[in-house]
């Protein structure tokens, strides 16, 4: 039994198929997103009135720490990862990622790491030092309980997942592109993902080092962050933000990639300024490593350093502005189709701009001294992360759900989701600009009345409830449509890139025949050949493409598209096609399903969690857990590495 069945729990536990792993990422990350959202609702309920009494100081601090940590590491990053997994191989015309089992491992590490960190709620000691975890507050002297241990170990675990995935995707994109897909023909989402993987590879080691220091301080009595022993109190801040600022781009660039897919499709027009979009993405990522200290203007680094970081920060606004202008001019002169996905994408263009521009306001060190650590900042980065990342991800979900599931999401419910989110998001976060300017600092669990903050906080709270309510529409829509939505067919949107040339959901081997690519918009070339006769780079006659809109065609070079076909409602199929030829029948070697990556991940996490017992004064038990887990992990790792990936090639 080479391939296993495609249904049942076991098939999900053992899958190495990038599409199924992407689906797992999607639903897991949405679950964590709901948890982070629930934490946000509690925070807003606490702050709705002055002197709120719902949460005490300790629980409130845990709540905002876990809200931030969850949204960054357990929701938005993995939501992006869901798209990396599902889309990158499809967009570049590959059958899977370079290392399918490593891919499964990344997912399981993420899942177990997320569960590990949230188990802290059950012992009442959830992380409470903020998502930024400034030392020395997070050292043993000031945080002696398990809270920070959960946080440090949890982030280390999640870092393993991100790094493994990043190397995997870099290798995939460099090595596995279909013939003819040179770098400047890659879809923009793949491009932005490519950039993000490099950000991950370069930024995560920095936070890893910072966390290793903290871990050693906490567990083994070293003094990396002990001021009395001569530590530099700013060491943590520098290391954290050298990671933390590129992290912002790790969170936003995938969303930029998604809307760069959505806007052209629904404007019926190629992306305006494709090469400039590529280069500005790279430039944003590059400059992103040189601006970290704009998070630290209040520490007083002196005018020279302040000015340099200020200039670098202002510079980032330029490539970011270029992206915004290019999106706007992608729509200009097109024919716009206002689907829900398009609405979310347009919302990103507007709302992210607000966050981007208020970012420019913090780039001035002097002005930032009045803004930093106030609610003005909270407003700013929620416009970036909700108005930007989440709006982009929602656009991506509505756009790609048909490819994930073979079914369309309901546009009607989607419209409710969009408009309630749009209103809710602005009602929540816009008043925060004003509460911040009225002097309200962040991370306070209570405030006195009559400081001019009451109305703004009440508005933010009502907005947050509305936003939470809106998200239920998405959940309902997804659950309802997963089996009951309109059948999508290969290409419900008339989109240009390769993933739409194959069935929805795609067969496990993706492409029966690896396509040959001769332009940036392979499907548009196929489906509207009359439109591209003028286009020089597609003028290669019959040879220009091998993509077959049905995914089964293996013929020699003649494009057999279905011009109106898949994109018009009339000729849309009435059932989801699942009886493709199997990989075996086509003679395509597929990787064996395997449970080993799951066990390697599981025992890696139990190994880390054994460290908690050290602080429970059970050194013997801790050693037993750690050593047993390490042995099991190594054993399963060897078993994984010594078993063949796929059947012998015929």
């Amino acid at each position, binding site marked *: 039994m080479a391939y296993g069945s495609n249904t049942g729990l076991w098939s999900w536990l053992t899958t190495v198929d990038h599409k199924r792993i992407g689906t797992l990422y999607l639903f897991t990350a949405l679950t964590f997103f709901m948890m982070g959202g629930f934490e946000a609702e509690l925070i807003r309920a606490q702050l709705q009135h002055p002197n709120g009494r719902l949460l005490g*100081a*300790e629980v409130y*601090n845990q709540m905002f720490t876990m809200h931030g940590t969850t949204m960054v590491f357990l929701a938005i990053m993995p939501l992006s990862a869901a798209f990396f997994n599902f889309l990158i191989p499809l967009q570049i015309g590959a059958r899977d990622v370079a290392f399918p089992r490593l891919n499964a491992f990344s997912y399981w590490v993420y899942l177990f790491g997320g569960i590990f960190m949230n188990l802290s709620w059950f012992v009442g000691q959830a992380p409470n030092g*903020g998502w930024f975890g*400034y030392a*020395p*507050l997070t050292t043993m002297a*000031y*945080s002696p309980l398990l809270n920070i241990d959960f946080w440090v170990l949890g982030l280390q675990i999640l870092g393993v997942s991100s790094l493994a995935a990043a190397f995997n995707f870099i290798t995939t994109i460099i090595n596995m592109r279909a013939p003819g897909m040179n770098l400047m023909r890659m879809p923009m989402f793949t491009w932005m993902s490519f950039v993000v993987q490099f950000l991950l590879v370069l930024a995560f080691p920095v936070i890893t080092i910072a966390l290793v220091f903290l871990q050693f301080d906490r567990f083994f009595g070293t003094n990396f962050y002990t*001021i009395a022993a001569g530590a*530099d109190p700013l060491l943590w801040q520098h290391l954290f933000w050298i990671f933390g600022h590129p992290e912002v781009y790790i969170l936003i660039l995938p969303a930029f990639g998604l809307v760069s897919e959505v806007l052209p499709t*629904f404007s019926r*027009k*190629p992306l*305006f*300024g494709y090469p400039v979009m590529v280069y500005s993405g790279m430039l944003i990522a590059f400059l992103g490593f040189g601006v970290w200290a704009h998070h630290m203007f*209040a520490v*007083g680094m002196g005018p020279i350093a*302040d*000015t340099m970081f200020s*200039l670098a920060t*202002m*510079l980032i*606004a*330029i490539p970011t502005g*270029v992206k*915004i*202008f290019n999106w*706007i001019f992608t*729509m*200009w002169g*097109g*024919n*716009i*189709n206002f689907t829900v996905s398009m609405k979310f994408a*347009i919302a990103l263009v*507007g709302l992210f*701009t607000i966050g981007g521009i208020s970012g*420019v306001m913090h*780039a*001035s*060190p*002097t*002005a930032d*001294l*009045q803004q*930093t*650590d106030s609610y003005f900042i909270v407003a700013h980065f929620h416009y970036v992360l909700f108005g930007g990342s989440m709006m982009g991800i929602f656009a991506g979900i509505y756009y790609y759900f048909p490819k994930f599931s073979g079914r369309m999401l309901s546009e009607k419910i989607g419209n409710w989701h969009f408009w309630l989110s749009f209103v809710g998001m602005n009602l929540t976060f816009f008043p925060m600009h004003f509460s911040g300017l009225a002097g309200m*600092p962040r991370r306070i669990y209570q*405030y006195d009345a009559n400081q001019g903050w009451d109305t703004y906080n009440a508005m933010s709270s009502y907005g947050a409830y509305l936003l939470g309510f809106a998200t239920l529409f998405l959940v309902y829509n997804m659950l309802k449509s997963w089996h009951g939505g309109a059948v999508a067919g290969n290409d419900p949107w*008339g989109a*240009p890139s390769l993933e739409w040339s194959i069935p929805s959901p795609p067969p496990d081997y993706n492409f029966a025949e690896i396509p040959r690519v001769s*332009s940036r*918009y392979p499907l*548009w070339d196929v*489906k*509207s050949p009359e*439109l591209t006769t*003028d*286009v020089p780079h597609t003028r290669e006659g019959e040879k220009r493409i091998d993509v077959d809109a049905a995914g089964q065609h293996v013929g020699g070079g003649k494009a057999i598209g279905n011009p109106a076909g898949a994109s018009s409602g009339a000729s849309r199929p009435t059932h989801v096609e699942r009886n493709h030829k199997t990989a075996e029948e086509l003679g395509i070697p597929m990787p064996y399903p395997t449970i080993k990556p799951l066990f390697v991940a599981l025992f890696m996490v139990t190994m880390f969690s054994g460290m908690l017992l050290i602080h429970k004064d059970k050194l013997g038990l801790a050693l037993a857990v750690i050593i047993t887990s390490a042995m099991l992990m190594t054993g399963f790792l060897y078993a994984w590495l010594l078993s063949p990936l796929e059947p012998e090639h015929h």
Partner: protein
Amino acid sequence: MFEPAGPQAHLILQLWHLIAWTCAGVFAAILLVLVAILLRTPRAPMPAAPDLSTTDKAEPGPRRSVATAVVASALLLLALVVASVFTDRAVARMSLVDAVNIELTGHQWWWSARYINGPVSDTFTTANEVHIPVGRPVIFTLKADDVIHSIWVPRLAGKKDLIPGRTASLQLRADEPGVYQGRCAEFCGLEHAFMGLQIVADPADRYEAWAAAQRRPASEPADAQALRGRELFLSQSCAMCHAVQGTTAGAQHGPDLTHVAGRRELAAGTLPNTRENLQAWIADPQKHKPGTNMPSTPLSQADLSALVTYLETLK
């Protein structure tokens, strides 16, 4: 934004207005173009064929627009950097002639302020309420005792971090008398929300009178109950952390209480300073500020009353 009451906050406010209006203008322009394009672009029926005419052709119109927008935003950004640098210089160059020197130390979760002007004998220490003279510059030397804190008095100046093991400096001046609310702006643990600081700007004569009073040790209690209160203060755990100048209590782990009765608030902005609140605070600090380092002191009602009577004499 906050109504400025001193030159530092005023300069920052001017800069802020410039930046905010520039940014608002840019956003309005982008939004206008976006909305105009959305309104003017025709709607497409779903299966509309894509328009690929632009694939490899230059689009001179949009290209010019984007290039213009990029150049314009670069110039605006540069202007903002220049304005910011000049504001920073102006803030740094405030005259410090005749300045008042105060060493401000952040603790979890309160502030101690040591006035270090003139001879050593003139030095005095207070907590959570800092009086400054109107119209005279003040140099705060910033230190931290445990973790990183940050001082923020929005109406007077921007933030500055108080970093353990380091010394920083913040200069400001209040040009109008008044009480300026300040607080810790860097998350510093459990009770970060209740780490308030009041800056009270007094006219020169009132400030001098206040400072002179602060320099004096605590006055001798007049009545028997207050005397008993002092005995309790010195014999119970109070004296292990707090100082009252003129008595044997000299510990510096908690706020200096030599003139505690003259302050407006208790426990760094947690409670207004009234007799009832003081009594309730001593009886059970954990109820009002959970996690504060001050433990509950088991005292009989009579003892508690005597202790509070004594503290009330520390004007």
